[in-house]
């Protein structure tokens, strides 16, 4: 395909097979031209164009394009973020040290958040230390929230103390991400603190997520608190509590659970199953 760079960028943004040809033609004009779409989001509007650019960037000498990729993941527009993120993800664990270094110096919240999203997908716990610092000190609660969640998702078991500290963050959203993270990392000592956070929560869906974290942690010291959630007005919360008791069981639950008659079929069935599982232990 012949054309000047502006024409090629325009074709690249179309949902046509020509978008792929335009990407190839840009690549032939050299690395700066191939990286140009990352700075021109409208040229990445079609999936064909985005995928073609990502494929071509991936086979280019990474050292020549890395600064462009890292700049693109800090964009406020999703299209360069997705395209650059795709390349960094496809690099697999090779991109981890680069992203970790980037996290130590990057100032923009978008950049930090999107770098952590890539690290979540690569799922490497090498990133734990760099992310811990962000979870504790970043000014932006959105960044702290993603950071503490990432610690759980990448299985950073050595970061347990940090997650416990973040359970006291001043932002409710951040605290709730820490609740989820504590569930991934099964932090037994966080259970009581999580109960307090869940008790104050009003949204039943969020409450249920908190109970699921307690379920994963499996600390029987909070069994009575879980029983309390069986009186919640929301059926999903009660169901979550009934299921959680299977791992958080202690024998004092038995007489209380035996008397429970839940009006909701799904919850009643979960209580029955919990009784069957736990009473045969």
């Amino acid at each position, binding site marked *: 395909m012949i054309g000047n760079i502006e024409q090629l960028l325009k074709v690249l943004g179309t949902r046509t097979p020509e978008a792929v040809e335009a990407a190839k033609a840009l690549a032939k004009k050299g690395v700066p031209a191939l990286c140009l779409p990352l700075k021109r989001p409208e040229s990445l509007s079609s999936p064909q164009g985005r995928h073609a650019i*990502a*494929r071509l960037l*991936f*086979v280019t000498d990474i050292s020549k394009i890395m600064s462009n990729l890292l700049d693109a993941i800090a964009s406020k527009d999703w299209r360069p973020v997705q395209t650059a993120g*795709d*390349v960094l*993800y*496809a690099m*697999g664990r090779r991109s981890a040290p680069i992203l970790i270094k980037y996290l130590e110096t990057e100032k923009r919240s978008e950049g930090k958040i999107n770098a952590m999203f890539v690290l*979540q*997908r*690569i*799922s490497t716990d090498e990133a734990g230390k760099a992310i811990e610092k962000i979870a504790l000190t970043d000014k932006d609660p959105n960044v702290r929230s993603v950071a503490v969640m990432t610690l759980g*998702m*990448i*299985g950073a078991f050595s970061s347990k103390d940090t997650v416990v500290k973040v359970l006291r963050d001043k932002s409710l959203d951040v605290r709730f991400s820490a609740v989820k993270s504590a569930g*991934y990392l099964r932090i037994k000592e966080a259970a009581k603190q999580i109960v307090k956070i869940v008790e104050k929560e009003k949204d039943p*869906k969020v409450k249920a997520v908190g109970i*699921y974290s307690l*379920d*994963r942690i499996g600390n029987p010291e909070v069994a009575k608190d879980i029983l309390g959630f069986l009186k919640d007005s929301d*059926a*999903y919360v009660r*169901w979550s509590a009934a*299921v959680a008791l299977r791992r958080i069981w202690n024998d004092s639950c038995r007489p209380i659970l035996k008397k429970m008659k839940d009006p909701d*079929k*799904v919850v009643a*069935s*979960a209580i029955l199953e919990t009784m069957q599982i736990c009473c045969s232990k």
Partner: protein
Amino acid sequence: MSKIEIYDLHTAVSGPCLEDPKKLTSEKFSEIFSKCRHGIRLLSMDGRNEAGKYPVSSVMQMKKVIDCLEGKMLGFVTVNPYFLEEGLEAMELGVKKLNMKAIGEMVQYMENWVTDEYMVLPVVKKAGDLDVPINFHAGGEDHVEGVVHLAESFPKTKFIMAHFGGRAWRFAAKLLKNFKIRNVWVELNIPDPKDPRCPIPSTIEMVRAAVDCVDIDHIVFGTDFNISPGLDYQFGNRLLDVLETMKMKDRDMEKICSLNAKKILKVR
């Protein structure tokens, strides 16, 4: 190894073939798979986008297509939890009377519900009661998380995690391993090796992660292929290429290609 049999647990029959099952004759079916260096049997669902809105008629139509293909295809029951009562009825009818072998694909991303939300719980329980696996779309972290939550909550139900979580496969592997989930079967597809981002070594890493997180007995093959005359199916060849490159033992290859599927679907 002599010609191996492959069970593809994740295909769909396209709308036109469902409207007129004669469009998918046994000969046309064979043409689609003519370039395969393996025998093939498919587990298929209704490929129409809104099939879950009319699950009973959908499962009956699916049965007609299956009957035309002399045992080359088995069926899913397609359910949308927004239409719960009819969905449960279709599951009962499909599994008990029409010999359907699984439920799914549960497509939360298309129907706009959350993988583990309240309204889906009766569907999951019913699949467990009927003792058939339930296939959930899993193309990202949220879906993976939802499937794992349901699997932990319904230990008697067998789950198939479609696409092995898509790009979130490393996260899926980590969760399944860390929480020792034993009732999830990982569905592998083999990406196109012509895409430079998916070279065979990275696919091998994915297969190894699957073996490591759920063991060789919990891996099945599924492609999301939409069956329509004129198309050319070669996914099974890609699977064999990868497993052969890995120098996998014959018995383990057989497990991934078909034995695990036969066991979970209870077919001979």
